[in-house]
């Protein structure tokens, strides 16, 4: 998890991204560039397109228009690399994602969930993958649960396993899609603590969240999405603590309670 490779060049980039379902435009031309070690928080009302947006970053949603660039190369529409274009499979191998509903593999143990990607996708040896997985599980505080099946874990534990599963691929970017929204309030803290530590260690992350205090705390940059566009962007201080846009003011006020 060391990524002290600081450069100003973007790791992943979205250019003029549009996404429509039929006649419904969810994303209406968004741009974003993540530099190494940067943590960007995406906030906004539900239906504003923030989940769709980060799901476009690893091509779980195929953009209707616009480009994703990874390591300054265009991501193509094929699974494998194609000439100058990076394949979707390659992109996803280096860009991890954690989901709101965990999506752990219920037929595999905690350890197998974490080793599945390295063994099957990266062809890492089983022994090496298991060693690294145990190490990651220890980091998220779940080493003793390695033989358990996901059904026997709490929501917070599941989400920490899901984070370990994503980290096992040694991603350059981590996408977090409302990772605490499905958790009981008392379990949110343990997951946020793990993410906070990743941020401190320099992991590049795009985080969709409703946790305003958390976003203000860990993000270098906060984007406010509204009706499919980036309505306001800036430091956490500007966007969350001193919002200018009236809709953003209303939104932030509601979450501050």
């Amino acid at each position: 998890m060391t990524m002290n490779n600081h450069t100003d060049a973007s790791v992943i980039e979205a250019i003029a991204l549009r996404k429509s379902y039929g006649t419904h435009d969810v994303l209406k031309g968004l741009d974003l560039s993540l530099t190494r070690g940067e943590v960007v928080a995406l906030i906004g009302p539900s239906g504003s397109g923030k989940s769709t947006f980060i799901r476009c970053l690893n091509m779980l949603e195929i953009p209707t228009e616009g480009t994703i660039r990874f390591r300054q190369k265009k991501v193509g529409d094929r699974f494998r690399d194609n000439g100058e274009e990076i394949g979707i499979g390659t992109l996803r191998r280096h860009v991890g994602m954690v989901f709101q509903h965990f999506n752990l593999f219920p037929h595999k143990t905690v350890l197998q969930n974490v080793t599945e990607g390295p063994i099957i996708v990266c062809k890492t040896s089983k022994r090496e993958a298991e060693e690294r997985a145990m190490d990651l599980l220890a980091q998220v505080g779940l080493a003793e649960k390695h033989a358990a099946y996901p059904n026997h874990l709490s929501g917070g534990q599941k989400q920490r396993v899901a984070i370990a599963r994503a980290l096992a691929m040694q991603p350059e970017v981590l996408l977090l899609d409302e990772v605490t929204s499905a958790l009981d309030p008392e379990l949110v803290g343990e997951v946020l603590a793990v993410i906070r530590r990743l941020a401190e260690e320099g992991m590049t992350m795009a985080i969709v969240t409703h946790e305003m205090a958390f976003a203000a705390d860990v993000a270098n940059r906060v984007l406010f999405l509204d009706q499919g566009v980036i309505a306001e962007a800036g430091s956490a201080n500007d966007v969350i603590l001193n919002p200018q846009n009236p809709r953003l003011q209303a939104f932030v006020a509601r979450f501050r309670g």
Partner: protein
Amino acid sequence: MTYNWDFHSVWQFYDLFLYGLWISVLYTIGSIFFGVIIGFATCAARLSRWWMFRTIARIYQEIFRCTPLLVQLLWFYYAFPLLVGGSIDNRVAGMLTLSLYVGAFYAEIFRGGIVSIDRGQREAAAAIGMSPWQSMTRIILPQALKRVLPSFINQSVIQFKNTSLVSVISVADLAYMAAVVNGQTYRPLESYTVMAALYILMLLPLTQAADWIERRLRVSD
């Protein structure tokens, strides 16, 4: 009514019953084997992104699900040869029809299992870089097949019973042999009771196993 049961005269022909039972088991196992292959292929076609495959698979399924198996057997044995010119062996016609019939149902069972798996599973597999094939074989299918195992066994139990219909095209299965024994002994009550008892004997363990598996799956979910 007093009836003098006489199983003895019928049981003299136990070797005919056992031979018939053996044939029934063979047709069951054979048609399940080919049916699983046909079922997987049809299921894959149904889930394909090319509409041609989807349509062909759908037409095949509907033809075999919407006609009685008896009609299919008669058609394949008596009508199909006229269509292509030549003749078809009754055992081949029987196995072919049984396989195509059960394949259509298996395809629907497999498909139902696959589409019942939460979309998040496929997304999680994709998000760690798995190819669609890896995602299907390592994540989706293991869960889907486990989920449909009870339905699969039920369909296979039905299939065992369905093999009795091949007797109408003179395949010497258990039902056919029971009729033969009846012809020899003029003892329909005993002949057909022995036949029924043999079917129960074969299938009871299977239905019990299906129930047991279903209960276990419910617990582990």
